[in-house]
């Protein structure tokens, strides 16, 4: 129970609670709207529903912006908790402190993607005079609400199951050579990095060619291999230590908090990459801008990763 008295955890959970309350109100409103909406009607009830819709849309927008802020704050909270928990040197150990950590993190990222898609659909919906995607977007919100509820429950369960007395593994145990997180498919580092760059080029190509579904698949692959590449290769150049393989340590002060930027760029790029596919399913439209943003984010991500390697090479003349 000590964990709950950490400043960051308290603030994090408090913010999540406030946002969940908003989400709940939006959920109730959504149910009403879905049941009674009839755009052609000229009744006072329909007009009242239109007004109600503004409230719900505003709430969801507010929830999104705050969720975007809360994800890095979650990472920060986890990082700070590593100071309290025996054995942990960074967030990796804290996330692994119980089986809920990793699913929670994944869910948060997934949720952020989902809410991002919702906002794009909402924007498109408001452009036409007859709200063509109205029901679609609110039905989608119902799905998001299920995810939000799961996330909230997981938040509480995860934090309440972190003990300050049980020792957790530190990242060198989790990610290192002896750890359970080897490079997948028994690849060696060179192959991994080659696949990484190839996938990047593929995302750029597909975005330029405007192929939403291929880009969707390749973006997901890029997410996976991008993560693995950072952990097993690029990260070691950030830490300047060939055995230091950890996705969380780079969030710390010593590394100039570069982790926040790095992961934001990757998640952003992947989001914009998969967005058009989701949009084509939901509203049968795609956006040129999303392709461009995907290219932009992925490119900056790759540049950042490569920069660390080049910097080390230039400075030391050898590979790690």
């Amino acid at each position, binding site marked *: 129970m000590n964990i709950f008295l950490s400043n960051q955890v308290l603030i994090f959970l408090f913010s999540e609670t406030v946002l969940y309350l908003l989400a709940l109100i939006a959920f109730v409103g959504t149910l009403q709207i879905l049941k009674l909406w009839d755009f052609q009607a*000229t009744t*006072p009830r329909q*007009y009242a529903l*239109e007004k109600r819709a*503004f409230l719900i849309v505003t709430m969801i927008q507010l929830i999104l912006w705050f969720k975007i802020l809360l994800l890095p704050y979650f990472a920060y909270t986890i990082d700070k908790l590593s100071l309290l928990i025996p054995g942990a040197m960074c967030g990796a150990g804290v996330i692994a402190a119980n089986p809920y950590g990793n699913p929670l993190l994944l869910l948060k990222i997934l949720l952020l993607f989902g809410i991002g898609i919702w906002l794009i659909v909402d924007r498109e919906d*408001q452009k036409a*005079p*007859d*709200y063509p995607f109205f029901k679609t977007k609110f039905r989608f919100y119902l799905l998001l609400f299920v995810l939000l509820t799961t996330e909230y429950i997981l938040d509480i369960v995860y934090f309440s199951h972190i003990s300050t007395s049980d020792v957790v593994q530190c990242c060198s145990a989790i990610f290192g050579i002896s750890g359970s997180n080897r490079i997948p498919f028994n690849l060696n580092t060179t192959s991994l990095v080659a696949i990484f760059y190839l996938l990047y080029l593929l995302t750029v190509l597909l975005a330029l060619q405007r192929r939403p579904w291929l880009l969707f698949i390749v973006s997901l692959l890029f997410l996976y291999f991008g993560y693995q590449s950072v952990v097993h290769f690029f990260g070691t150049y950030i830490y300047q230590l060939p055995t230091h393989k950890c996705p969380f340590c780079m969030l710390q002060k010593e590394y100039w908090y570069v982790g926040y930027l790095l992961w934001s760029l990757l998640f952003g790029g992947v989001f914009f990459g998969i967005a058009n596919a989701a949009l084509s399913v939901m509203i049968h439209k795609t956006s040129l801008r999303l392709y461009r943003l995907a290219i932009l984010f992925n490119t900056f991500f790759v540049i950042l990763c490569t920069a660390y390697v080049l910097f080390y090479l230039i400075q030391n003349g050898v590979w790690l």
Partner: protein
Amino acid sequence: MIEVKNLTKIFNEGSEATFHALKNISFTIRDNELVLLKGVSGSGKSTLLAIIASLLKPSSGDVVVEGRHVAKLPDLHASKFRATTIGFIFQSFNLLDHLSVSENIAVPLIPMKLPKTELIRRVEHAMELANISHKRDTTAKNLSGGEKQRCAIARALVNTPKVILCDEPTANLDLDNAHAFVEVIRRLKQEGYTILIATHDTIFDTLQEVDRTIAIENGEILQ
């Protein structure tokens, strides 16, 4: 051109306080016409103007302005319609009292995301048109009745509308200012605006530029 087709508005439908403000109204106003809407208070003039401006939704019927069906537009499109097509002049001026003249006039332009220089240019132009440039920094509540009217006119013109709607524009003016306002209307008609004035002031009766008068009583058009 403004077409009003079978417009009905019922307030508080289904309750004891049900009030039929407009009953099956139809008429057409052609481009560049100056039309007077005459009727006493409570006859439905303000309600009609509000529906034409897409500020209020009717119970049934349709309104077509410049080719667009505006009666049941969702708010985003209704407001855009108002912002680009309609200039509204109210009875009690309805200025924002704490803001200056130039700030008041700028209000309709703010959500349009114009570059600041363009915004200032349009405000300046509108102030010249309404002859109120010399009072640009005066707070609205410190203006005289006639000055407030000119400020309201400038605000109505700043977004280069096609249609000007006036709701009892001379009700709070003394005779001199009322005449000045009539002059403004004359000029606007000459410049090509379509103008609809809801009023029971007889001062407009002598205005030659008036093309038509529509009489309204108890929510219905007479004759």
